[in-house]
């Protein structure tokens, strides 16, 4: 090791220490203890989980919720990002501020907001009742996985918009003009030129917000309590007042973590492949 490297090493350690300590204390350690309590009974918890119909239904519910919330957010977020990219700088800043606002709200606030609007005696539920829409139906919708997905969209859409905006802004609209000059209709140009270009980012956005929806529990707990069977609520029930099945909770955590990581890596890999393809030699 050279002298200069020797001198740099202490400084490196000093600067890296806070990061390492945080990582160790708040990621490695908790994860380690979760894994620890999982192996305590020799993997019995995982096996029990697999045989538990409640868990399987919870997994199903969570996957449905993640897909619904993810898809809805991307479908709504994409045109919003488009509109934003074409706005004037000042107008865009203002709208961006408004769009980002829900990100700062806690899940509980969103949940109570939904209850106040769409609950059994919610403002909008009662308004809809005036035109003959049954309040039971509205409330039934809100307190269901679909309703939960809608509530999640409230703070997932801003994330999608923030993710898509740079890509939409950087898209060379001259490509659309070129496609038009070659005979493509507006729709064909969007489908053949813009969509393939946006696809990797759309996937990343979808999987990212789907992963958030898959793991979130604050809004769910406040909005639907235990009425809807999803994994985060199942996990909660295992360690709340009524239960203390830590190995089982650890097993559920592991499944949650695994599914979320899987989703993110699928998205990242497809984005990588996309970049690679653009510069492919053949």
């Amino acid at each position, binding site marked *: 090791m050279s002298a200069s490297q020797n001198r740099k090493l202490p400084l490196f350690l000093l600067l890296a220490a806070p990061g390492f300590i945080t990582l160790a204390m708040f990621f490695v350690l908790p994860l380690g203890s979760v894994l620890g309590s999982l192996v305590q009974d020799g993997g019995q918890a995982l096996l029990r989980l697999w045989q538990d119909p409640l868990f399987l239904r919870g997994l199903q519910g969570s996957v449905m919720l993640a897909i619904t919330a993810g898809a809805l957010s991307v479908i709504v977020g994409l045109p919003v990002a488009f509109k934003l990219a074409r706005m004037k700088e000042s107008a865009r800043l203002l709208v961006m501020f408004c769009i980002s606002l829900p990100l700062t709200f806690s899940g509980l606030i969103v949940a109570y907001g939904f209850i106040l609007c769409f609950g059994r005696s919610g403002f909008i539920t009662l308004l809809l009742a005036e035109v003959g829409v049954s309040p039971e139906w509205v409330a039934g919708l809100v307190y269901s996985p679909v309703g939960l997905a809608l509530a999640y969209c409230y703070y997932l859409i801003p994330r999608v918009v923030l993710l898509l905006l740079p890509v939409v802004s950087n898209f060379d609209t001259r490509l659309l003009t070129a496609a038009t000059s070659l005979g493509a209709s507006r729709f064909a140009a969007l489908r053949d030129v813009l969509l393939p*270009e946006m696809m990797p980012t759309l996937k990343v956005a979808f999987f990212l917000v789907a992963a958030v929806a898959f793991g979130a529990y604050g809004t769910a707990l406040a909005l639907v309590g235990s009425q809807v069977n999803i994994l985060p609520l199942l996990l909660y029930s295992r360690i709340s007042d009524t239960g203390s099945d830590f190995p089982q909770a650890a097993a559920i955590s592991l499944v949650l973590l695994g599914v979320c990581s899987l989703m993110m890596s699928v998205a990242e890999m497809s984005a990588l492949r996309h970049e690679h393809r653009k510069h492919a030699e053949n």
Partner: protein
Amino acid sequence: MSIDIEQCNFQYPGTGVGVFDVSINAAQGELIAVIGASGSGKTTMLKLVAGFEQPDSGCIRVNGQDVTHVPARERNMGVVFQSYALFPLMSCLDNVAYPLKIRGVSQAERHKRALAMLDRVGLGAFARRFPGSMSGGQQQRVALARALVFNPVVLLLDEPLSALDAGLRVEMRSQICELQREHGITALHVTHDQEEALSMATKIALMHQGRIVQLASPQELYDNPNSRLVAAFVGQANLWEGTVTSQSRVDVGFATLACEIGAYKEGAAVTVLVRPEHVQPLQEPASASPGLCPNTFRGPLASDTFLGALRRFELAAEGTSARILGETTARTPVGCIHIDPHHVRLLPPGDIPLA
């Protein structure tokens, strides 16, 4: 097919910028270059022809048929963009085949035709490559192939060579001309490079502030510019404001030049144009004084630039503040020059064109 742009007006909303009273007639197979400084409206004019913008008034005809209100995608025009505008996620082959795909040509057929077109621009071996892995010159040739593969009615070139380096530009010029002639296609070529325009075009339209100042053959534009503006834009030029003093003399302030005054009357204000290649270095006459020999000036060189085949110099005419720009192939010292009266051109004064 022929293109006729008739009295087109277009103004970008909320600005004074656009094109005004633009008329160009291009016969079948002609290559018309549109030149002018940035913001002169040349690209706007191309957009009107391509259908990317709608003229406020006037009309555009292709082969006599009014296409003014036909949408861009139905005009069947091949456009080559300055930025190439190749689709980054399609291979070269798919890029070139795209217009055929849109027209419902079967996959086998469109790949065959696209490949033939790529071969034609010398890129047959690159068919499976993606644009991102190719050089600017190669991308531009793919763009050219894509613009020609569907047998468009006209070819529109929007500064297609400006992003390429000098050597490649010259090579691409002849390739474009060759393809254009081979296809017998009428082309409109927008460029800010006058050399490109002079070497490629059958006719050149020079635009300034949204208007066409002169529309003429390259030779005509160079030899007989209709205004100071055109003379200054195309090629190098000595330009002096002057007054016609007699049937064969014009006063340019620092001297009185012998010339042919043509239709100008005595006392008329004119702009005097002398191209630098007509400024001839002389073996210094031993006895003759400048006063005796009109159009002859002596003096030191204010600048002397070696350009390879040519040498460009500025002679500071003795006893005046005038500098005369000249070009010569001679390598010997220059101390005295002569301007043949035949090569002294008189133009209307100022920037106002004749028409």
